């Protein structure tokens, strides 16, 4: 056993005064007697008792000497050396990609991380970076094993692919000049983008638990004639043939089951017709005896067209407008269906029968009159606090020509002097946004604010109607456009609800494959539907490939492992407390039979 402060054994000298006290101590038994009258005056002879008495070894003395010995041992700070992978500063890069969900890989990595962070000390700082679809720093420069353990416990495997390169860059960014930094990569090695050069000052702990896996590799839909055609591709990554039932569910209710016979390492495809329409959620789920990677056994899609907004453009239109409408999620051309709203670009707006976005109409809508035209108007007013303009700067807006309109009942958002450039209003109870200038003759389409402004205009005109944010790989953030005064709330695939902060524009915790429904909650508790998004398991992860990542071990740790000086103080303190408690019990707590004398 080694000691950090061996000089502290001098504390053993405390036993000397204890022994002296024991030798000087008058050990008088207390005896109850009928009367002390006949002993009166005897106390004057007590002074003649021998002050130094023969040391009697009692159990209490032994325990007290033991307590002193343990105390001295505690002060001497004994320690033992423990081998560890931790260096002065170690960044744990933990792979949370979908392949880590195979078998026991992720749990084994988590257990290893638990063991590693338990060794964190002032001399061995630990940082944690997750290598999921979006690399994140969970802990930085921490010496607190409890906090680090909590961070590891909060990790979850995703259905997405890893961004190992991003995670390594993030880990490198945590390097500190004052102490060497090493990386510990806890991964199966199945990185999406190969790492060309060996990672310096790093080690790769491989977690390669594997097993047979059957996965849904592709799932899509297309409108049919009164129904929907579904396309599903199932891959057998195992080395044994597999009979797999694919169950299709519409809005959670079973619809039909298809059986696929899959040869080893092969894929099977099936196209089925199903009675489902736009807006409904269709799920394909593998029904089999279970495999090593359950996360890829289900996939969902939202049939497009139902919850989105069908838009019809009246008038001349422009490439900018078309590009905008095609880029907005949940917005689709009204083909064969009546439009939910219209964009009137240069055409007459005399009749408004649905929400409309008016762009320099040839004739004004009811309630608005033309009063002339103005060239090169300069934006002088941007309505403060208006959600549609929140965070947007239109002061550089350059307009060739704008209509001068009189609209007393309308709300001007942007003005050039007294001339309104953008207005909001209602016609027969329908929302109307009015741009008094031709956007094709302005610089608005080339401003970064244009798509945001367009998205907000469409959301406002749509009255908060749900938009389908589409399908994307797990881990892809969901863009949000909450109306003013609302708080986004996301219903996760497991049914739990996560409420975001007011004004949140994005939701990034989409690592779990499945359906995400967004609601916008107003202050009075009313909910308006937001986008519905599907995050799919990345098919490439289903193979569960493992390979070593090339690393160059850090040179500041001798050999393959470092060592920690682990002190024994928790055990010694526990022993000391036990000894002190036992001493107290011996001195006061032990039941002592009452002794009575019979001398008067």
């Amino acid at each position, binding site marked *: 056993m080694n000691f950090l402060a061996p000089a502290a054994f001098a504390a053993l000298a405390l036993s000397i005064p204890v022994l002296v006290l024991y030798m000087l101590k008058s050990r008088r038994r207390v005896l*109850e*007697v*009928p*009367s*002390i009258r006949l*002993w009166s005056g005897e106390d004057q*002879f007590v002074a003649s008792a021998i002050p130094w008495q023969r040391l009697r070894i009692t159990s209490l003395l032994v325990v007290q000497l033991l307590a002193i010995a343990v105390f001295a041992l505690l002060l001497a700070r004994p320690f033992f050396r423990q081998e560890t992978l931790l260096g002065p500063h170690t960044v744990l890069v933990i792979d949370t990609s979908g392949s880590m969900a195979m078998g026991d890989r992720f749990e084994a990595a988590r257990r290893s991380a638990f063991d590693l962070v338990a060794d964190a000390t002032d001399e061995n700082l630990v940082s944690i970076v997750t290598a999921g679809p979006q690399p994140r720093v969970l802990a930085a420069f921490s010496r607190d094993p409890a906090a680090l353990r909590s961070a590891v416990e909060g990790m979850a495997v995703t259905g997405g692919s890893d961004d190992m390169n991003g995670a390594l860059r993030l880990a490198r960014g945590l390097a500190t000049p004052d102490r060497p930094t090493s990386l510990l990569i806890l991964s199966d090695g199945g990185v999406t983008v190969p790492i060309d050069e060996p990672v310096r000052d790093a080690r790769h702990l491989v977690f390669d638990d594997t097993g047979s896996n059957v996965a849904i590799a592709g799932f899509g839909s297309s409108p049919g004639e009164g129904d929907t055609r579904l396309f599903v591709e199932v891959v057998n990554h195992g080395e044994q043939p597999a009979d797999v039932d694919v169950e299709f569910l519409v809005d959670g209710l079973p619809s039909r089951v298809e059986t696929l016979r899959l040869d080893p390492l092969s894929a099977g495809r099936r196209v089925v017709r199903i009675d489902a329409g736009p807006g409904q959620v269709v799920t394909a789920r593998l029904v089999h005896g279970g495999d090593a990677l359950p996360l890829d056994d289900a996939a969902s899609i939202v049939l497009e067209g139902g919850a989105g907004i069908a838009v019809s453009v009246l008038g001349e239109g422009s490439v900018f407008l078309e590009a905008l409408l095609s880029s907005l999620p949940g917005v689709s051309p009204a083909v064969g269906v009546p439009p939910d709203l219209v964009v009137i670009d240069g055409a007459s707006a005399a009749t408004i029968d649905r929400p409309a976005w008016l762009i320099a109409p040839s004739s004004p809508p009811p309630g608005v009159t033309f009063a002339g035209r103005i060239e090169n108007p300069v934006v002088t007013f941007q309505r403060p606090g208006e959600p549609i303009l929140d965070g947007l700067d239109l002061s550089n807006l350059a307009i060739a020509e704008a209509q001068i309109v009189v609209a007393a009942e309308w709300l001007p958002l942007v003005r050039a002097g007294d001339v309104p450039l953008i207005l909001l209003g209602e016609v027969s109870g329908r929302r109307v946004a009015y741009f008094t200038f031709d956007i094709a003759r302005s610089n608005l389409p080339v401003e970064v604010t244009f798509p945001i402004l367009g998205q907000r205009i469409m959301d406002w005109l749509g009255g908060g109607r749900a938009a389908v944010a589409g399908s994307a790989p797990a881990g892809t953030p969901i863009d949000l456009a909450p109306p003013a005064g609302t708080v986004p709330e996301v219903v996760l695939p497991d049914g739990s609800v996560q409420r975001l902060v007011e004004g949140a524009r994005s939701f990034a915790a989409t690592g779990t494959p499945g359906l995400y429904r967004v609601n916008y909650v107003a202050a009075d508790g009313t909910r308006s539907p937001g986008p519905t998004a599907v995050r799919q398991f990345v098919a490439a992860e289903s193979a569960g490939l493992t390979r070593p990542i090339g690393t160059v071990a850090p040179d500041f740790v001798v050999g393959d492992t470092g060592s920690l000086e682990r002190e024994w103080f928790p055990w010694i303190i526990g022993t000391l407390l036990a000894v002190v408690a036992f001493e107290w019990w011996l001195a006061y707590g032990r039941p002592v039979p009452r002794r009575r*004398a*019979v*001398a008067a």
Partner: protein
Amino acid sequence: MLLDSELRGRLDRLAVTTRRRVRGVWGGGHRSVRTGESLDFADYREYQPGDDFRRIDYNLWARLGSVLIRVFEAEEEAPVRVLVDASASMEFAGKFQTAQKMAAVVSYLSLASGERVRLATVPGPDRRSLVGPWGRHVAAWPQMEAWLEQLQPAGGTDLPGAARLVIGSGSLRGPAVMISDLLAAGWQRSVDLLGTGAGGVVVHVLAPQELNPDLTGDLTLRDVETREELAVSMDGRAVSRYRERLDSFIAEARARARRAGMDYVLVPAGPNAAEPAIKALIEAGAVR
């Protein structure tokens, strides 16, 4: 049962003696402070109308010309009061059991010899005296025995209070029997007070361990009644000094009792203390 039948048979043949006149209620075998009808001449006194003519001493009338009548002694029962020390100090080494036994002996033989008997405990600063009923015949013994048996030693001791209880209550006058270890303040005063009645006996009960202590080492002695503590270094000299004090204490108690007109009997506590105690009572003249 405090007294077995054999012991009661022996006690039936014994009687309490008194050295002074008593004042009882009923006639008995002890000289009374009153005059009465016994055969023992006591005195003359002038004739008073109503006196019995048969008691007129005609010889003196003829010789002196005064009408005098003869007065005779009265003989009455002796009211015996038995005080039992039931303080905490009596709890040790069977002292209280011995005190109970001695109280039973004295009470029974008094009842058997036709005396009036009353039992009482010695009061303390923290408790009152328990006073039993008067008994005048052996038929009252079971009741008195039961009263004795229910006593439990506890609390302190007020021996002068016990003496005042005996001599100050009622017009009866008889011997008092105090059964105590006398290990309390004021015991001398109590003996003096008791002696002012019709005498009696002090039964001094001490444990054998009190008579011959065998303690060693450094001790803190704690008085069970007063809770006072005394540090003592016990060795041969200390024990020797204790014995000197004990002998002095016993001698003083004996002398104090005698001076007060009472008998003194030292009774070592123990299960067989009754026989030697009875013998000692007989030798002291308290019982015949």
